[in-house]
């Protein structure tokens, strides 16, 4: 053996740990800062000597992240042991048998899931089997310009009609041609699904029950008409079909919108040093349809253990560890991620770090999950293309609702 090679061999032997340690690899999406996860995983390593956890980061959006996981898991690759999943994925991953079922590891599943916000128990349980555990919560909020509403002596609107009236009052008083009323998403992205569901759910309707379609065409027409009317009245921008999630964030942050319908991540940016609206922002439950009730769209991320992991017991243990109140609190305090345990919204340490969480609980509690079905991607595609077409004006709300119903019937029976 040449001396160079001998040195390399020696280095390799020395690099190996003394015991046969377990190395787990977890996959997290790129939109969340990793240091806070590293901190949480360090705690897991400390509590489980001999287990090491590596982080793999990828996918800036939920879709990119899912595409990566789809490729890895449909190939049966064992390189990932656990992963973060967007709220809409567990049902799909469970049907494809890509996640390790967890009932045997958590005792009575119903009892165990009671500790979380109830909608997460629903999204993470498929046919009585718990397939993932909540990591952190998210929901759509109504952000509003506190300074402008105060100036005109207005309270956050309870209904969309009230919002329209308030916008007209403020626009008439401000004479600012660059100021818009409300920014929401109608580009054909995942956010557009929530755009449709918010007013649809608000009227007490649901889309699916136990895998069966419960689509109400009349309510769907009304929901789409509500948004179209906001555009027609000049309350929402005419180019709303171009607007994706982060465009709403940018517009509101630049002081260009009075109201914004957006996920929780906006708050930190709005209060940031380069925000034009720092200290001028309030957050409220979303307006309801007149005569309906306020509903939000639930987001948030779940931990799942890979079915192809070579260390399944350790992976399940890790998932359980990452879904405890301690870790949820760490994520809230260090990274302003909304807790999945209702009690943490009153926790003094959490409220010290994120005072606005006091208002957030009410919104999170009104939030509903999008349809829990393995065919969610098809459902999402149908809804988002329709929302996009109707708000671009290439279809009327009636045509859109009819087409949506017909297409959904082909997917969910």
């Amino acid at each position, binding site marked *: 053996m040449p001396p160079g090679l001998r040195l390399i061999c020696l280095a390799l032997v020395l690099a190996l740990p003394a015991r046969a340690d377990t190395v787990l690899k977890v996959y997290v999406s790129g939109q969340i800062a990793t240091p806070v996860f590293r901190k949480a995983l360090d705690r897991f390593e400390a509590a489980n000597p001999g287990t090491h956890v590596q982080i793999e980061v990828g996918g800036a959006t939920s*879709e990119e992240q899912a*595409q990566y996981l*789809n490729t890895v898991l*449909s190939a049966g690759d064992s390189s990932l042991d656990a992963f973060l999943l967007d709220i809409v994925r567990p049902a*799909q991953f469970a*049907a*494809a*048998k890509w996640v390790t079922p967890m009932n045997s590891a958590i005792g009575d599943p119903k009892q165990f899931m009671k500790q979380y916000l109830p909608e997460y128990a629903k999204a993470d349980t498929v046919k009585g089997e718990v397939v993932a555990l909540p990591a952190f919560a998210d929901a759509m909020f109504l952000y509003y310009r506190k300074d402008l509403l105060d100036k005109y002596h207005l309270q956050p609107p309870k209904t969309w009609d009230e919002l329209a009236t308030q916008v007209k009052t403020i626009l008439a008083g401000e004479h600012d041609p660059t100021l818009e009323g409300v920014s929401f998403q109608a*580009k*054909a*992205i995942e956010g557009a699904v929530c755009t449709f569901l918010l007013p649809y759910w608000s009227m007490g309707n649901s889309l699916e029950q136990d895998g069966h379609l419960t689509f109400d065409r009349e309510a769907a027409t009304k929901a789409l008409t509500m948004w179209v009317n906001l555009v027609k009245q000049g309350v929402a921008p*005419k*180019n709303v*079909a*171009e607007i994706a999630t982060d465009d709403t964030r940018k517009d509101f942050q630049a002081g260009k919108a009075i109201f914004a319908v957006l996920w929780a991540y906006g708050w930190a940016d709005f209060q940031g040093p380069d925000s034009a609206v720092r200290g001028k922002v309030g957050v409220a439950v979303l307006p309801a349809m007149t005569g309906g009730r306020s509903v939000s769209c639930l987001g948030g991320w779940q931990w799942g253990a890979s079915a192809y992991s070579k260390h399944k017991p350790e992976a399940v243990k890790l998932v359980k560890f990452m879904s405890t109140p301690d870790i949820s609190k760490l994520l809230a305090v260090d990274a302003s991620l909304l807790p999945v345990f209702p009690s943490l919204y009153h926790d003094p340490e959490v409220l010290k770090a994120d005072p606005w969480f006091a208002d957030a609980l009410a919104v999170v509690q009104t939030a509903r999950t999008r349809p829990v079905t*393995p*065919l969610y*991607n*098809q459902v999402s*595609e149908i809804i988002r*293309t*329709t929302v*996009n*077409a109707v708000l*671009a*004006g*290439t*279809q009327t709300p009636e045509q859109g609702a009819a087409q949506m119903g017909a297409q959904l019937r082909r997917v969910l029976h």
Partner: protein
Amino acid sequence: MDPKPAVLAAVLLAPAFLLLALIVVYPVGRLIWTSLFELNLTSGLPAEFTGISNYVLVVQDPVFWQTLTNTAVITVVTVPGALVAGMVLALIANLPFRRPWPVRLALLVPWAMPLAFTGLISAWFFNSQYGVVNDLLRRIGLPQPIWFNSAVLSMAAICLTIIWKASSFVAMILFAGLQTIPRELYEAADVDGAGRLRQFWSVTVPLLRPAIVVAMIFRTITALQTFDIPFTMTRGGPGNTTRTLAMYIYQNTVSFLDLGYSSTLAVVMFLISMAVSVVYLRQIRATT
């Protein structure tokens, strides 16, 4: 002891044949085979042989017909469009410049841009609020449309982008063709009193015909597979009005994990590409 010519031929051809079998025959065969199954990874069920039922579903699928029509529109608009634009560029590049390389380099730039980049950049160009296109329209006093709110304007924006991108490739092929045309032919035409336009139609075009056909084959096949530019510019919107067949295949594969159905769509696209290629190849044979 020499081997028989037939044996020798077989031995010599075997590596090439094996390579082709590996990279062409096997994947295509596998694709066709998968298209005969109902295989959706989200169903959790094993693949089930269903014969041609996927093909029946394709024919009944309105979105398939819409994406096919969109693909056809893109092909019919951008192939001649890129040809005309490419011809103009090639003729300019063929002018006797003192320093030819900056012109030739400029010719290469759109071709060197990645497709997805091009799409993302044009999405900003045509953005109704921040786009440079609407800014220009405003400066010259024309109305500024919301491009991506309209099916026709979205399609127009996509086609313009594709023509810009593809014209550079077409121009390079035509430019190479132009350089093979002897100067004497133009001198002779001059002597005969033919004007510039007459020279173009009677000398340039006929002699450039093989290059034109080659450029059109490549352009048509890439147009039939259009994916990146509409995907990054409009995601197929508004509604499904700019979704192409390739995007629909991608969606069924990557997003819906419906491998059976997406294989069927891919077979259909393969057959269309084959048919077009055969027509063109006949055309080439007729010209040479």
